[in-house]
């Protein structure tokens, strides 16, 4: 890969497997596979790097537009910055999934609940810790209870 820039947080390189004339890869220096594992500094620098790469492609090769994308996976995170021109033959459109309004409502409610829960946990770390401990004790009690039942069940079902 042709190396373009690096600092303590990110590395910017030209792609060895280009999908367009002007394909740049911006990646964290650390071996990180998921967005959630990046520090605040890392994720903002990563996207600043991508945005500057897009601007450089616009200024230097006259790109008419750019796409910036990534997919988390089993390997290290890589942010692709791809220069676009009219009629370049690339198609980055998807066929929308048809969802009923009740499906949409269901997903919306679930996502909203998780958002509220995670924000509450972040703002009330002590209480969240206690709540988790209570849940873990309850779980242990349930497992214990199940174990007892199994013993009784085994005694009654013992074959001569």
């Amino acid at each position, binding site marked *: 890969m042709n190396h373009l820039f690096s600092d303590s947080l990110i590395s910017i390189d*030209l792609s060895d497997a280009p999908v367009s004339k002007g394909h740049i890869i911006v990646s964290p220096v*650390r071996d990180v596979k998921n967005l*959630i594992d990046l*520090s605040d500094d890392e994720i903002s620098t990563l996207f600043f790097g991508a945005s*500057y790469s897009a601007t*450089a492609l616009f200024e230097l090769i006259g790109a008419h537009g750019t796409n910036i994308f990534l997919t988390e996976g089993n390997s290290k995170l890589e942010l692709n910055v791809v220069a676009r021109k009219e009629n370049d033959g690339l198609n980055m459109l998807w066929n929308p*999934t048809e969802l009923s309004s009740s499906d949409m409502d269901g*997903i919306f409610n679930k996502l909203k609940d998780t958002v509220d829960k995670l924000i509450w946990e972040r703002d009330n770390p002590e209480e969240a810790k206690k709540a988790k401990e209570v849940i873990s004790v309850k779980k242990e009690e349930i497992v214990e209870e199940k174990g007892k039942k199994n013993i009784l069940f085994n005694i009654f079902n013992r074959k001569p």
Partner: protein
Amino acid sequence: MVTQEELEKMSPEEISALQKQNCIFCKIISGEIPSKKIFEDDKVVAILDIRPATKGHILILPKEHYPILPLVPPDVFKRLFIQTKFLSNVLKKTLLCSSVSLFIANGAVAGQQSPHFLFHLIPREKNDGLTFLDLPVNSEFVSFQKDIASSLKNNLEIMMKNHVKREGKKLIPEVKLSEEERREKVFAIIEENKDARALLRKSPVEFKKLISENDDLKNIFLGVDLEKLSEKLNELPEEEIQKPKPEVFLGSDPLEQKNRVFKYFDEKPKAKELLMDDVVRFKELLSSRPDIQEIFKDIDIDKLSEKLNEVKK
């Protein structure tokens, strides 16, 4: 309704104001048009996409109207992507999906359909049939890539340097640290520094503030979960955290000594081989070279050779 003629006479600022006035996403944000808003803070909003690529596909956008990414001011820019981390976690926890895709289109040619800058966060599963990011590689473009490399490099270096300067920081060169080396350094700092240890025990937030003032420390603690580390530390009584007895590096700053020696070995791998194969000859070399003597000052040479051979085995 504005005519083509009127539009042509307008300044870029007037066109932007007009776009903002008619922007459907500004109306969604203000509540004029209903939407399924799953998250908002003072700068960022996330809504469910009504034409989703997969179930749970969301759009993340700044509350203020900016037409393209480069026009988003730095404070909003940072918040957008920091909240993206949080929202990727929300998608994974709720939908139990294995990963997410993030997609930005800058400009109509790239597929930007809205005059309000936004991007997509899409929950993904293995074999979900979504192939819009599986693009065909064209090896004919490789030579073009090589041709533009040096101008891109110059431009990016200037842009990144200016960015770091605007942020009031210094550009720190890349330091390759394996996770093991990082862990070792973190433990050494905690073991050797009583005050730092006490602060980390008491308040990981304050400890984070302290390390954010020092670029080297910031780099060493990069990605370390300070909350968890503080929790683990508090499970151990202070007297159990004893400084390990020095064996090889006997000076007042063993970590610095170690870094100095391994830097020398990186530059002179033959010297390392000599130390591992023949300690006596290595000592002879030392006696004739005062410059190398300085590097190996207060170091048990025999033990170092032993340790290096152990590692090799």
